[in-house]
């Protein structure tokens, strides 16, 4: 009996504690990333981006100290919403940075609508509908999304490379859909073809690509491959072993360092593969070089070069801090002034100027790259071209862009 009373009393005390109230002068900022599950390594790099921005501002913005509270999800939307709800309702954060992956972003956007007094900034999630269709008033994305990342690649493949018909191999979920759409839309508008039956969708973590390789048509000029990490390495190895010789076109995370750094013959085989994305490791620009140097100095045990996740979290955190400076840390009146400042913000990032459109999605520069063999035999992505100020509707009006329909396996039809 006595024991039970104690337990009850403890539970009671815990419940009463409620949201911890910060010192009046502090601003609480929550950061949400995947610190567990399959994307842990990427989530940790995202967190490094947040910390890098905070360190740059010495954890102070608008004359107030910033207190960072971290939250973790396992890349499933359920866990992302639970973690963000804890940050907002229990820890009482006023600004949220996150989440990392596409479907999490859609879920957090829906949650943001129920919390009008808190401002949400994206982490690195890149699903199109987070800001395109029924956006939330208080959700900002200063990082670009999957279709924007493909800007210029379709034109490059058609005009420079001379490809007319491509096969598609991608993982079967929203982010690759968005990337395929972003690549095929300009490619097909120019006259390129990609028949529906030459598009192959594999589950994440697929190991065996032999059936896909066997089914690849002979009459295509190239394969657009939107696979990530281990999936990309597995496909390239198996394609090389089965004597494949079609040139490749890469998605934003297909020919990154994890693939280029791998051993074996697959390496030589990817030389000349064009790709596009929000960052380029080897961009020869002082702003980017300074960013890489700061990253390496702050996190000696991090990646050799900041990933696009660290970059996206960094940009979004920095936007929040700059806007806080502008309004002198004034978060009163449902953070109205702060949001106005965010909407009008236009600032210099390691990858060029960034601002947001009327649906609070970023307009930023995108990098067109191609894999080359470096002087010391290492493979690296060489920056071919910087596509300036790409917006979410890829240059056409909002209404016209909506007519293209939702991204999916058969959009655009292109045959």
């Amino acid at each position, binding site marked *: *009996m*006595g*024991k*039970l*009373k104690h337990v*009850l009393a403890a*539970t*009671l005390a*815990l*419940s*009463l504690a*409620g*949201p911890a109230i910060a010192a009046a002068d502090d601003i609480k900022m929550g950061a949400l990333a995947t*610190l*567990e*599950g399959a994307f842990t390594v990427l989530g*940790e790099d995202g*967190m490094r981006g947040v910390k890098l921005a905070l360190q740059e501002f010495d954890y102070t913005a608008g004359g107030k100290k910033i207190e960072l509270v*971290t*939250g*973790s999800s*396992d*890349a*499933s*939307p*359920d*866990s992302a*919403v*639970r973690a963000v*709800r*804890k940050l907002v*309702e*229990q820890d009482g954060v006023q600004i949220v940075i996150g989440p990392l992956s596409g*479907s999490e972003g*859609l*879920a957090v956007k*829906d949650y943001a609508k129920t919390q009008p007094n808190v401002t949400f900034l994206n982490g690195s999630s890149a699903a199109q509908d987070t800001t395109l269709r029924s956006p939330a008033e208080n959700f900002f994305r200063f990082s670009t999304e999957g279709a924007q990342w493909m800007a210029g690649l379709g034109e490059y493949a058609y005009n420079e490379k001379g490809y007319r018909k491509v096969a598609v191999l991608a993982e*079967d*979920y*929203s982010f690759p859909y968005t990337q395929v759409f972003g690549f095929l839309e300009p490619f097909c508008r120019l006259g390129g073809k990609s028949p529906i039956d030459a598009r192959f969708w594999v*589950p*994440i973590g697929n190991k065996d690509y032999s059936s896909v390789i066997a089914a690849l048509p002979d009459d295509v000029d190239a394969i657009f491959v939107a696979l990530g990490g281990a999936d990309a390495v597995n496909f390239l190895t198996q394609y090389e072993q089965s004597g494949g010789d079609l040139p490749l076109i890469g998605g934003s995370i297909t020919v990154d360092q994890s693939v280029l750094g791998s051993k074996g013959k697959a390496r030589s085989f990817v030389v000349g593969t064009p790709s596009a994305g929000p960052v380029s490791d080897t961009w020869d620009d002082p702003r980017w070089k300074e960013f890489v140097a700061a990253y390496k100095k702050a996190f000696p045990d991090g990646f050799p070069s900041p990933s696009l996740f660290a970059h996206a979290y960094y940009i979004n955190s920095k936007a929040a801090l700059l806007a806080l400076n502008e309004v002198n840390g004034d978060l009163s009146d449902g953070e109205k002034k702060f949001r106005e400042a965010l909407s009008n913000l236009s600032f210099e990032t390691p990858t060029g100027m960034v601002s947001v459109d009327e649906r609070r999605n970023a307009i930023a520069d995108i990098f067109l790259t191609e894999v080359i063999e470096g002087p010391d035999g290492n493979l690296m992505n060489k920056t071919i071209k910087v596509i300036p100020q790409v917006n979410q509707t890829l240059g056409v009006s909002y209404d016209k862009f909506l007519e293209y329909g*939702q991204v999916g*396996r058969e959009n655009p039809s292109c045959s």
Partner: protein
Amino acid sequence: MDSRRLFSGSFSLKNIHPSVLITAVFLVAYPSFATDFFIFQIGAYSLILGTIALSLMMLAGYGGMVSLAQLTVAGLAAYLMAILGDNSMGVMGLGWPWWLTVIVSVLGAALFSTFIGAVSVRTEGIYTIMITLAVAVAFFYFVRQNYVLFNGFTGFAGVEPPTLFGVYWRDPVPFYYLSLVVAVGFFAAVSYCARSTFGLGLQAIRDNPRRMRALGYNVTLHRIVAYFFSGIVAGVGGVLLVWFNGRVSPGTVGVDVAIDILVIAVVGGMRHPIGPFLGAIAFVLLENFAIDLIDRERFNMVIGAAFLLVVLFSPDGLLGLWNRVRDRLRFRGNAQLSAERVNKDDPASSGSLEKS
């Protein structure tokens, strides 16, 4: 906690243990002093996970059948809610009225559970676990790759409870009471069931199936019916789960979550229906607050270590721990009592220690 007497037929108000009253008052009054976060994400979520774990406790504790597919059953109910009812994804969403959707979803889950029972009850121990695990894994991959019915990787969003009697049931307080009513209802039903002929038969089958078969019981059928009942419990838990999350996707029915349910049941204790709820409270508190206790890279270790400690020091889970503490207190109380009496030279009570 004295449900045995509560459902033994000789029930009277005087027989209610004070701790039951205190717990009841606490649970009912909880929303009046807790914050929305504690009402919804801790309170209601614990009750939902507790309900799903209760369906496992029922099978494992009374029937000796450890099924890893209970979350899968709940997940099927959650998916059926999105498919038959409304969702915001533009896939399926047949728009049936909510009451019909709920009934069909729960029954669908119960039938699915019956099917799982039918294929697994002839096995024992580790093999039951393996078959049910296979079902859970197969279901996970199936919903992830099926786009026509289950909308693949993305799953469904925008699944909401109906607005009834002017109450929006997803608001923290109404949703908490809804979960509480469901949880208490199933708690009472399982407690009653355990004392019924069916429940006693099930426990007897757990202890000695051959003897029960010799006595003329249809052991296989008995077990399958147990799966059906546990499917109803899990199915209702799944309906609440989809209302709680507002969405369902393959991540909801992943193998790691299925194992979480097993962990909840084991940590709580399998011997009494209150165990899964204790386990769920411990699990939800740890899941939410472990990240505040320790460096963010290591917080999963705290969760693992806490559960390891519980299982190591109390194979019966939290429930066993509590029983042990209570027995020790009682023992010490009796010892003190008798010591006092001996000091007073009270001959009538000497030897009470031995008797107890």
